[in-house]
């Protein structure tokens, strides 16, 4: 049994063992092993040429990685907290994303780091900025909700010829443990996972909210409501087929995500359902997201901000009787 953060460490470790073009850039990833220990022991094993401690320069970290990636290297950049990806926005959004379309040059780059709230991290250590990048052509975005997926998707991201943003969820880092099978366990980017099959209503989600959905499903069994839970796993490109399949099956959908509601991934999923499966719906598509506020610090405030099982159960009951 390994934790979600150990799954991430294993994925990088194994890819570095089998491919010498894989290397790491990040802040405090060397002797310290990373703020969350994702790179613990790597400096000793792979040396300072492949485990590069960076100045506090997110834009240069990504820029350096883009240059190296174009040369055929496979850099993995760690954002100490994914909130700081904002400081590298231009390099990711304007350089890495459009590069292949513009002049045919691959950028096999991974930018990974801890996202998400629930750990009282306040506004700059709790964000889920994935929807900002969902808008950017040429980028892929991954957000695993299980340890098995974290490992398999990170390996797939490192091997992908495109720039991949890898949004880990820090709430899950040491809270979940799973059995990892032998072998690579690659999980394809772009494929959602039906985490629970059900008849009555679909919850489409990803990341830590997957566990909220599964817990709510257990509680709703007593009410005779059978939830289906679709874990997107990849946010860009979205798995339209899986999204539309679950909509056609249950005809009622809640999109549950841990982002501010406006301009969210949830909004994009809802729009696709409206465009392509309107006639299958028995009720409006509902988004259960965070409010359009910065992320508050105090537990009472953050709990009010985040979606949770109670909020989801209430929303499901409301929608089931629509």
């Amino acid at each position, binding site marked *: 049994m390994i934790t979600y953060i150990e799954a991430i460490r294993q994925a990088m470790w194994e890819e570095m063992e089998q491919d010498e073009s894989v*290397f790491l850039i990040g802040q405090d990833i060397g002797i310290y092993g990373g703020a969350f220990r994702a790179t613990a022991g790597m400096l000793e094993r792979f040396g300072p*040429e*492949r485990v*590069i401690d*960076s*100045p506090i*320069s997110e*834009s*240069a*970290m*990504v*820029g*350096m*990685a*883009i*240059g*190296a*990636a*174009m*040369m*055929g*290297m496979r*850099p993995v950049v760690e954002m100490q907290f994914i909130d700081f990806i904002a400081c590298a926005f*231009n*390099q990711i959004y*304007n*350089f890495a994303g459009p*590069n*292949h*379309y*513009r*002049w*045919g*040059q*691959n950028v096999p780059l991974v930018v990974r780091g801890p996202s998400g709230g629930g750990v009282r991290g306040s506004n700059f250590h709790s964000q889920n900025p994935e929807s900002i990048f969902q808008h950017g*052509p*040429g980028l*892929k975005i991954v957000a695993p909700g299980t340890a098995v997926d974290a490992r398999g998707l990170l390996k797939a991201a490192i*091997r992908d*010829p*495109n720039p991949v943003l890898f949004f880990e969820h820090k709430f899950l880092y040491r809270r979940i443990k799973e059995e990892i099978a032998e072998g690579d366990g690659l999980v394809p980017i772009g494929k959602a996972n039906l985490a629970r099959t059900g008849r009555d209503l679909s919850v489409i989600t990803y990341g830590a909210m997957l566990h909220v959905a599964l817990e709510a499903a257990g509680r709703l069994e007593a009410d005779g409501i059978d939830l289906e839970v679709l874990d997107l796993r990849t946010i860009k490109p979205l798995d339209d087929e899986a999204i539309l399949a679950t909509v056609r099956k249950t005809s009622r959908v809640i999109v549950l995500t841990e982002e501010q509601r406006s301009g969210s991934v949830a909004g994009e999923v809802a729009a696709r359902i409206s465009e392509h499966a309107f006639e299958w719906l028995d009720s409006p598509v509902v988004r259960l997201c965070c409010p359009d506020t910065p992320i508050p610090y105090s537990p009472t405030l953050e709990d009010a901000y985040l979606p949770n099982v109670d909020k989801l159960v209430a929303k499901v009951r409301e929608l089931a009787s629509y």
Partner: protein
Amino acid sequence: MAKLSRNWGPLHPVADETERLAKSELPRERQLEIYRYLKLNRMTEDRLSNLYRQGKVVGGLYSSRGQEAISVGSAYALEPQDIVGPLIRNLGTMFVRGVQPREVMMQYMARADGPTGGKDVNTHFGDLQRCLVAPISMLGALIPVMAGIALAGRMQKKNLVALTYIGDGGTSTGDFHEGLNFAAVLNVPFVLIAEHNGYAYSTPTSKQMRVKNIVTRAAAYGIPGEMVDGNDVLAVYEATKRAVERARSGGGPTLIEAKTFRMRGHAEHDDAGYVPKEMFEEWKKKDPIERFERHLLSSGLAVEEDLKKIVAEIDEELNREVDAALASPMPPAERAFEGVYSEVTK
């Protein structure tokens, strides 16, 4: 008006004092090749101006007039394996690296057979087979990217040096600082040439920075800096050569400041009315190509006929290049939807 020029005026004494070019051991044939690239740079841009006036250039047109010596002199100092990231005013760099004029013309005219097939504009194309990296419009961004190329080259033991450029305005970006600092910390084989041409669009250098010379910033990164007369192609060549050799032998990055002047507006649409006329007059006397011509003639490396012959050959070449570029159609509409992702698996 004197106030505007205070940043670099004293560094450029009157024309006759800077007339003599730097000493160079380059043999005659190579100096004539440099001359050919300088003329190719300028004459291609003249042809592009014509195409622009005929309405054939789809977007804006950018001129490097007056700055050709920086592009040509620096690119000429590179070895074949070295990788360069030119900016919008580095057409000469691209030519030295083997780009054909028709490629640039087709890019400007958005044609199907251009290097990006109509997907991107002007000099925004690259080809790592030819050791060229495409820029993005956000200045400074190429600095960490090229430093990353240098890093990868070192990891792959390719013995290469990465070189790119920045304008005086571009030195105000965060990426200039982050990129140069990180490159210095990692001691990668990287050369940055700051082209100090007096203006960033309409903004004079005095509004970009309080320092007189960009090169003083090298000290802040703990790397060597060198200031060079950017209108002396041999001086640029020699300075770049020193920096490239130092980088290749493990000496890390260098910041070179090349003083020059932008002899046109920001782009073809801009008449540069904000530049005092006397500055254009002063700098016209220091035209880098005319200075190099006088050098070739006075040092006995060439006679008038040699230079005329080179110009005539370029003229003929450009006739063919323009015809070839004009013969290319516009790209098919469906191309707009292709190639967002690379499908190449590992």
